[in-house]
C-alpha cells in the first residue's frame, strides 16, 4: 500500500496513546489523568490509555483509529523507543500512514522507573506528552533507503571462536577473510592437552577444524597478519590488512621441514614462542606440529642470513652471511624468500566478527606468588604445555631440573577477584585448575593441593566433573595462598613453601611443594583499546568489547554489522565461545541474506543555496560522510554514510545543514511543549 501523505494544509489530527505497561508505568503515573489532559491539547483528535500498547490489540487500536478518525499523526507514550519504536511505526504504516508520522515518548525508563512521587511523575508524563504533541505536526513523510550489502565477511582472530565462525559462514557459502596475528591459527585451545569437563583431547577436536579452515575454498586465511585500517559502514567496510613477511612463499612451501633439518644451527637454540619459552626452536621453524597453515617461517631476529636488529621502520636487512643450507634443502620448491617484504591487502566486506580472545594475567604483578622469581613457580598455560604430548617435554611433567614433582600446589584466583589487579572472576580457572589437578596426578602421582576461595563450577557437566576430581583424592583447601617462599629446610632442589589460611579448619598451612601452578586469570589484550578505536567499538571499563545488550543482543556491538565471539567479549569457556561464534555467524548471515541494509532516514542534508563552502563540517564528521564538490564549491553529505549523529548540523556556521526528524521547528516546538504549564 502506498503510504498516505497528508496533503499540505490538511488539518493535523493526532492520535495519542499512553501505555500502562502492566503496572510498570501505571503504578507511578496516573495514565487516565494524562490521557484526559492530552485530549484538551490542540490538534488532538483521540486520546487513550491502554494496558499493553505493544500487544496485538494495542496496535490494532492505533490502526482502527487512523481509519475511523482520519488520524494523520500518532504519539505513543510508553517505553524506550529502542524497544518498540519499530513496533508502532509498523502499526502506523499498516494503517496506510507514513511511519515517520509516529512519535514515541519514553515515560517508563525516563519517568515511572526513576521517580517515587506519583503526582510529580504524572505531571512529568503530561509535559513529555505535550512536547510530542507540539512536535509531531512538523513531521514529514520520509522514506527508508535500502543499500545493498557486500556478502563477504571479515573475521579477526583465529582462536576456536574465530575458527568456528569462519567455518559456519564459509559452509553457508559466504566468502570469509580470516585474519590471525600469529603464524598459526588455533589460539589458546591449541596449547591445551585435554579440555574440561569431558577431558577429551583438545587437538583431536580442534585440528580437524583448523585443517578445514586451511583448505576451505571459501576462506582466505591470512595468518601473521593484522588489520591496519577500517573505513566504511555496515554492508560496505573497506579494510586494509598488513601481512608481515615470514620469508616463506606460502603457496610454494609444502611443510616438509627439510629446511629445518638442514639449518646451519644443528640444535634448536632459541626460545619457542608456542611453548612459552619452555622449549627451543631453530631460526627456521614450524610453529607447532599441527600448525595451520602447515608452513614454516624464518625469524629474522636470529637467522644468520639477516643483519642483527631491526631497522628503525621495523624491517630487517639481509646480510647474506649464511651458507643457506635451508635454501639448498628446499631446492626446486624455491619456497624461501629472504627478500620478502610486508604486503598490504585491501578488501571490502559487509560484516565483521571480532574474535581476538584474551591474554593471561601476568603473575609478576602479584610478586608474593614468586612467579619469575622462583623457577618452580609456573603459570597454568606453561603447565598445559608441559602436560601436552607435543609440548617441550613430550608430556612428561618435570621441573626445570628434570625431576618429577612429588607435591604440587595449584593456586586459584591469581589475578582474578582482586581489586589490586583484576576485579572480575575469570570463570574458567576453577575448572581448568581441577583439570590440571587431575592431569598432574595422572601423570606423576603427586600429592596435589588446590587452594581456592570459592569453587565455581557452573554449567552442564561441570559440578559432576568437580565431584569426579575430588574423588580422586585431591587436597582441596579453602583459602587463598598468601605467600610463596623458598623452603628453609631445603638444600638446592628449589622447593618452596606455600602459605595459606585453611579457612574451614582455621589453621595456617605451610606446605612445602616442588611445584606451584598459578591459575592465572583472563584479561583483555593490551591492544584491545587500539582495536576498539580501529573498529569504532566500545569497551567495558575492564577493557572487554562491549555487547549491545547484555541479555538481548549479546553478540552485537554498538557498531552495526560488527559482531563479537569468544573471550574478547569476556572470559568464557570453549563451549560458550563456540556457541557465541555460531550466534555471531548467524547474525552476520541474517544481514547478508537480507541482501540490503535499511537506512534510518534521520540523515542530514545540506541546503546547497545556503552553504558558503567553508568546509568546517568536513573534518568533524566521524563517519567521513561529507565531501566537497569543487566545481560548485559546496559540501555534500553522502546519505549512505551519514549516521544522523548531528555533529555537522550543530557546527555549520551558516545553519545550512538540516537533519531529518531533528529540524529546527521540530525541536523548538518540542521544547515549547515541554515548558508549557501543566495542571497541578
Amino acid at each position, binding site marked *: 500500500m502506498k503510504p498516505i501523505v497528508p496533503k499540505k494544509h490538511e488539518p493535523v489530527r493526532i492520535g495519542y496513546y499512553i501505555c500502562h505497561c502492566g503496572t510498570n508505568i501505571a503504578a507511578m503515573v496516573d495514565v487516565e489523568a494524562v490521557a484526559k489532559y492530552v485530549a484538551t491539547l490542540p490538534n488532538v483528535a483521540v486520546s487513550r490509555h491502554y494496558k499493553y500498547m505493544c500487544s496485538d490489540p494495542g496496535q490494532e487500536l492505533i490502526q482502527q483509529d487512523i481509519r475511523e478518525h482520519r488520524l494523520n499523526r500518532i504519539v505513543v507514550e510508553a517505553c524506550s523507543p529502542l524497544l518498540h519504536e519499530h513496533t508502532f511505526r509498523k502499526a502506523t504504516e499498516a494503517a496506510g500512514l507514513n511511519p515517520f508520522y509516529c512519535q514515541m515518548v519514553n515515560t517508563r525508563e525516563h519517568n515511572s522507573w526513576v521517580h517515587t512521587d506519583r503526582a510529580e511523575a504524572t505531571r512529568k508524563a503530561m509535559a513529555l506528552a505535550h512536547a510530542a504533541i507540539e512536535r509531531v505536526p512538523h513531521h514529514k513523510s520520509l522514506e527508508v533507503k535500502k543499500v545493498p550489502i557486500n556478502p563477504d565477511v571479515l573475521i579477526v582472530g583465529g582462536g576456536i571462536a574465530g575458527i568456528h565462525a569462519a567455518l559456519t559462514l564459509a559452509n553457508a557459502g559466504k566468502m570469509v577473510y580470516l585474519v590471525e596475528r600469529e603464524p598459526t591459527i588455533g589460539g589458546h585451545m591449541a596449547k591445551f592437552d585435554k579440555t574440561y569437563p569431558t577431558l577429551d583431547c583438545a587437538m583431536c577436536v580442534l585440528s580437524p577444524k583448523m585443517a578445514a579452515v586451511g583448505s576451505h575454498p571459501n576462506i582466505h586465511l591470512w595468518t601473521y597478519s593484522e588489520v591496519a585500517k577500517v573505513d566504511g559502514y555496515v554492508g560496505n567496510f573497506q579494510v586494509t590488512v598488513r601481512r608481515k613477511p615470514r620469508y616463506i612463499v606460502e603457496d610454494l612451501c609444502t611443510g616438509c621441514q627439510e629446511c629445518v633439518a638442514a639449518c646451519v644451527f644443528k640444535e634448536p637454540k632459541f626460545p619457542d614462542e608456542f611453548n612459552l619459552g619452555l622449549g627451543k626452536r631453530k631460526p627456521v621453524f614450524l610453529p607447532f606440529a599441527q600448525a595451520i597453515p602447515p608452513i614454516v617461517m624464518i625469524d629474522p631476529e636470529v637467522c644468520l642470513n639477516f643483519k642483527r636488529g631491526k631497522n628503525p621502520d621495523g624491517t630487517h636487512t639481509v646480510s647474506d652471511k649464511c651458507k643457506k643450507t635451508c635454501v639448498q634443502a628446499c631446492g626446486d620448491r624455491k619456497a624461501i624468500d629472504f627478500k620478502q617484504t610486508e604486503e598490504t591487502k585491501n578488501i571490502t566486506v559487509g560484516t565483521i566478527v571480532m574474535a581476538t580472545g584474551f591474554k593471561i594475567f601476568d603473575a609478576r604483578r602479584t*610478586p608474593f606468588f614468586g612467579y619469575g622469581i622462583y623457577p618452580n613457580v609456573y603459570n597454568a598455560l606453561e603447565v598445559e604445555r608441559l602436560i601436552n604430548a607435543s609440548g617441550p617435554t613430550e608430556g612428561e611433567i618435570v621441573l626445570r631440573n628434570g625431576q618429577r614433582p612429588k607435591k604440587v600446589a595449584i593456586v586459584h584466583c591469581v589475578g582474578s577477584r582482586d*581489586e589490586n589487579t583484576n576485579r572480575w572472576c575469570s570463570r574458567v580457572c576453577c575448572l581448568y585448575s581441577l583439570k590440571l589437578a587431575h592431569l598432574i596426578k595422572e601423570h606423576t602421582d603427586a600429592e596435589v593441593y588446590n587452594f581456592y576461595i570459592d569453587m565455581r563450577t557452573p554449567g552442564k557437566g561441570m559440578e559432576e566433573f568437580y565431584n569426579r576430581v575430588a574423588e580422586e583424592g585431591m587436597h582441596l583447601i579453602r583459602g587463598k595462598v*598468601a605467600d610463596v*617462599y623458598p623452603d628453609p629446610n631445603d638444600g638446592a632442589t628449589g622447593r618452596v613453601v606455600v*602459605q595459606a589460611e585453611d*579457612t574451614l579448619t582455621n589453621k595456617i598451612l605451610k606446605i612445602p611443594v616442588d611445584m606451584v601452578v598459578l591459575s592465572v586469570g583472563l584479561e583483555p589484550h593490551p591492544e584491545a583499546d587500539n582495536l576498539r578505536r580501529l573498529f569504532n567499538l566500545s569497551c567495558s571499563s575492564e577493557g572487554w568489547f562491549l555487547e549491545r545488550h547484555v541479555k538481548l543482543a549479546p553478540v552485537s556491538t554498538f557498531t552495526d554489522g560488527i559482531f563479537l565471539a569468544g573471550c574478547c567479549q569476556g572470559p568464557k569457556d570453549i563451549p560458550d565461545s563456540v556457541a557465541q561464534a555460531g550466534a555471531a555467524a548467524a547474525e552476520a548471515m541474517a544481514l547478508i541474506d537480507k541482501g540490503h541494509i535499511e537506512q534510518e532516514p534521520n540523515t542530514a542534508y545540506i541546503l546547497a543555496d545556503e552553504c558558503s563552502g567553508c568546509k568546517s563540517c568536513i573534518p568533524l564528521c566521524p563517519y567521513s560522510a561529507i565531501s566537497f564538490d569543487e566545481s560548485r564549491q559546496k559540501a555534500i553529505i553522502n546519505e549512505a554514510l551519514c549516521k544522523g549523529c548531528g555533529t555537522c548540523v550543530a557546527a555549520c556556521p551558516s545553519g545550512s545543514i538540516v537533519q531529518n526528524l531533528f529540524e529546527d521547528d521540530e525541536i523548538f516546538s518540542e521544547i515549547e511543549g515541554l515548558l508549557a504549564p501543566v495542571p497541578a
Partner: protein
Amino acid sequence: MVATREPAVVDRTTTLETLLQTPAGKRMMTCIQCGTCGGTCPYGDTMDFSPRLVINMLRGGFMDEVIKSESLLQCVACYACMAKCPRGIRLTDVLLPLVKEQVLVTHTPMPAEFQKSLENMNRYGNPMGESPRKRAAWTATAGVKIPIMAELKREVDVLWFVECYTSFYARGQDNSRATARLFNALGVDFAILGNEEKCAGECGQLTWESGLFESLAEYNMKVFNKYKFRRLVTGDAHAYNAFHFRYPMFGLTQPAEHTTQFLARHLDRLKPMLKKPLDLTVTYHDACCLGRATGSYDEGRALLQAIPGVKLVEMVHNRVNSLCCGGGGGGMWLDTYYKQKGMDRLSDRRVKEAIATGADVLAVACPYEISRFEDALKVVPHTKPIVVRDVVELLAESLA
C-alpha cells in the same frame, strides 16, 4: 600492584558497634573470606581469631567472643593483611585497632611492660619515661647547629619532628645526628620543636588507646599551630604514618614526609655530595609504615644506591611482602608478653633472612628497627658480621 592507601579520614568517633555502617565497614561486608589476611599475617598461626575470622564474627554479631580472647594483641600493625586483601579492606588501621582497644579494656591488667610505656607516654610524652626537659639534649652533640622553633621566631621550610627513640636512645641519636648533617649539607631551612615536642602517638593510635593518642595529637597540634612551617619531616616511620593518615583529622594541613622521602626528592643535589665510597653489601628492610602503608618502597633503595660502593641485595621477603620487625601496634612493648605466650620474635625471623643474603649491613628506615634488629642479632647465630644502620647514617657517612 597492590594499592597504597590514600590518607583517608576515618571518623574519630567510630566504634565496633557503628563500624559496619561506615564506608570502611561497608567494605568489610564485601569480604570474601579468602584468608589472604590470615595467611600472610606473621602471627597468623598463633592467633585464635585470624583477621578473616574477626570480620566474619563481626558480621555475624559474635564480637564478644573475639574480645574475650587476647588473640588480637598479637597484631603488630604491619599492614601485611591490608596490603594484600583483594577487597581493599582496612584491617590494620581501622578494624583491628578497634578490636584491640576492646581487648585491652576487657583484659585487666594489661601486660605490664606495655602498660608502663603507655603511662610514660601520657606522663612524660615519651614511652621510655625520660625527662621531657632532656628531649633536645642530643643537639649538643650534633656537630651542627640545630635551630629550635621557639627561638627562631620565623617561618621555616621544614619542621623536623625528631621523635622519641631518636631523641633519647644513643643509637637513635645517631640517626638524628646524621639527619642534621644531611640537612645542613643540603642547606635545608629547618628547625625542631625541642623540648616542646611530645611523642606523635602513632602506636597509641594503632593499639587504639584512642584517648592517649588524641591527647598527644591535640597537644602536638597546638604546638604546630603556634608556628609557621611549610612541611613536616620526620625520621620516625611511625610518626610519619600518624602525620600522614591521622593528624589531618586533627587539623594538620601541611604535607608530611619521611626523611627518606624528603632526601630522595633532593637526590639530584645530594648525590654529588656522596663522595666517600662505603664498599658494602647492603640489604634494605621495608618499614611497614613506609612501604605497605604508603607505597614508599623505592626511596630508601634509591638513596642507598646513590652511595658509591654500595651493592644492594634483597631479602626473600621484600617490598609488599616484607616481614615486620614486630615493633608495631604496641609490639615494641609486648616482647615479654609474646615470649610468655611462646611466640617467636619477628625480629629474629627477619634478621635470619638478612643474614642469608650475606650482606654486611641491614639498612633500616625506622628507629624501632635499630634496637629490635640489634637485639635479634645478639641471639641469632651468624658467622659473617652484619650490622644494622639507618639509611641516613650511611648517607651521612658517605658525605665527604
